[in-house]
């Protein structure tokens, strides 16, 4: 019983971390119809920033700084690599995104020398706590709560504020949005800023649970978060969050099955098999809109 609880807890926690990344994918897709392949690597860079920042600065300064620099990185990537291609075919932008992804990975390899870097122990988050008789870290408890708060804040922003209204309008119709006086580029930048900020928060939570960061550390969580976004219906925020929790929990359950069954190595395979099944049977995902255009 205690074992089951601990598996579920860590599943929810991993799911929450995927959710924070998945929102970035789904937001950007919602507005630009672009799969931002560099997003997972932005997450990795946020992790590395966490290591370098905490090495020289106190936690109270370094963590906010990590979020700010990551936000700036996301903003700069959009301005440099995507904005000049606004009128280009969608495929070009996607290829540009893949290019940015490799650029970030290779820059990280250059800076770190390819060595796995140890993520710092963040006081409190890494401390252990007793829940229902099982030992776990605070980060496991805090992640789902933090995710819930951030998601509620984000949906309020999108549904209740003027910026949010502009984001929804731009996601449907660039040209008419311009005729309303909306600055399209500012709205697009806003989505990259929000997505990167959430990825930075996600990286702090995620890497606290993992011993080391390599330049490739962003690609697997990034891919899984992407699958979560597709599963939930890409473009939908609640969809991405629910998809991320489902994938996180399933993955941890598979890893937690008795070792005599010898299936734990298939946890990643499960996630990607799920992607194939969704794309075959329900391509629009759980909450996505069917791709029909009303004329």
């Amino acid at each position: 019983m205690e074992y089951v609880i601990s598996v579920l807890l860590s599943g929810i926690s991993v799911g929450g971390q995927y959710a924070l990344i998945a929102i970035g994918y789904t937001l950007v897709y919602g507005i630009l119809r672009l799969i931002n392949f560099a997003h997972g690597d932005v997450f990795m860079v946020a992790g590395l920033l966490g290591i370098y920042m905490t090495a020289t600065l106190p936690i109270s300064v370094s963590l906010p700084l990590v979020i700010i620099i990551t936000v700036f990185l996301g903003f700069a990537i959009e301005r440099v690599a995507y904005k000049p291609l606004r009128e280009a075919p969608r495929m070009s932008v996607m290829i540009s995104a893949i290019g940015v992804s490799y650029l970030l990975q290779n820059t990280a390899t250059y800076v770190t020398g390819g060595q796995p870097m140890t993520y710092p122990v963040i006081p409190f988050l890494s401390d252990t706590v007793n829940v229902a008789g099982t030992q776990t870290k605070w980060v496991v408890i805090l992640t789902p709560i933090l995710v819930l708060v951030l998601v509620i804040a984000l949906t309020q922003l999108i549904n209740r504020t003027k910026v949010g209204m502009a984001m929804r309008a731009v996601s449907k119709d660039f040209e008419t949005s311009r005729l309303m006086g909306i600055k399209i580029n500012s709205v697009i930048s806003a989505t990259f800023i929000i997505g990167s900020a959430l990825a930075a928060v996600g990286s702090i939570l995620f890497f606290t649970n993992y011993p080391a960061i390599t330049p490739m550390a962003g690609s697997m969580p990034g891919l899984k978060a992407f699958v979560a976004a597709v599963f939930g219906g890409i473009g939908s925020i609640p969809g991405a969050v629910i998809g991320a929790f489902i994938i996180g929990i399933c993955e941890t359950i598979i890893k937690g099955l008795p070792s005599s069954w010898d299936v734990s190595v298939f946890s990643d395979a499960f996630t990607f098999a799920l992607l194939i099944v969704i794309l075959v049977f329900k391509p629009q995902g759980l909450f996505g809109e069917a791709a029909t255009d009303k004329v």
Partner: protein
Amino acid sequence: MSEDVLQIKDLQISYGGIEAVRGISFDVKAGEVVTLIGANGAGKSSTLRAISGLVKPKAGTVIFEGEDITGKDSNAIVSKGLMMVPEGRRIFPNLTVLENLKIGAYLRNDDLEADLETVYGYFPRLKERSWQAGGTLSGGEQQMLAVGRALMGRPKLLMMDEPSLGLAPIVVQGIFEIINRIHEAGTTVLLIEQNANMALHVADRAYVIENGKISMEGTGKELLADEKVREAYLGSVDHK
């Protein structure tokens, strides 16, 4: 007598070498309804798109209230008080009716209540449906919403691109009645129409565009009575 709100001088627009508009000039004075009529592909929509900043003209100038706005960003142009009702309505299907109206006032920061009441006064149907998603409205209601949305920006000049397109005759009648009321309320209107009959009845002055050039101009009444216009755009009386 009255001053020019909009002055177009020798406007040329081309898309990848194909000339859509080949040097047209016209003006719109304060309080007028001016219409551009012409066949499909004559260059009417391109002209409006250039005025509102969606396409950059190849040559020529667009002067709005004495200021050169040629080639400026839509955002800057809208902020000067030039609103457009785009062709095909283009309401935001995922926003509610109320949000669609509010987004027309995106650049305004003052109180919108009075303007909402004015728009609801023109289109009571929109008030009944204010919480419905824009995409669930009928074609006619969407056109009302598109007009209402533009009015929310308190335009000094309201531009309408084919408001009658794809609507039932009775709905078209209603839309043109509203254009009359908007005109009477003092808003200057630049109207583009293929439905020349309706447009000429509501217009103070009109220009006929053919192959990217202005071929004729006059008051609405003059053009309605003109033999060539009747033949080409109104269908001659014998065939009715």
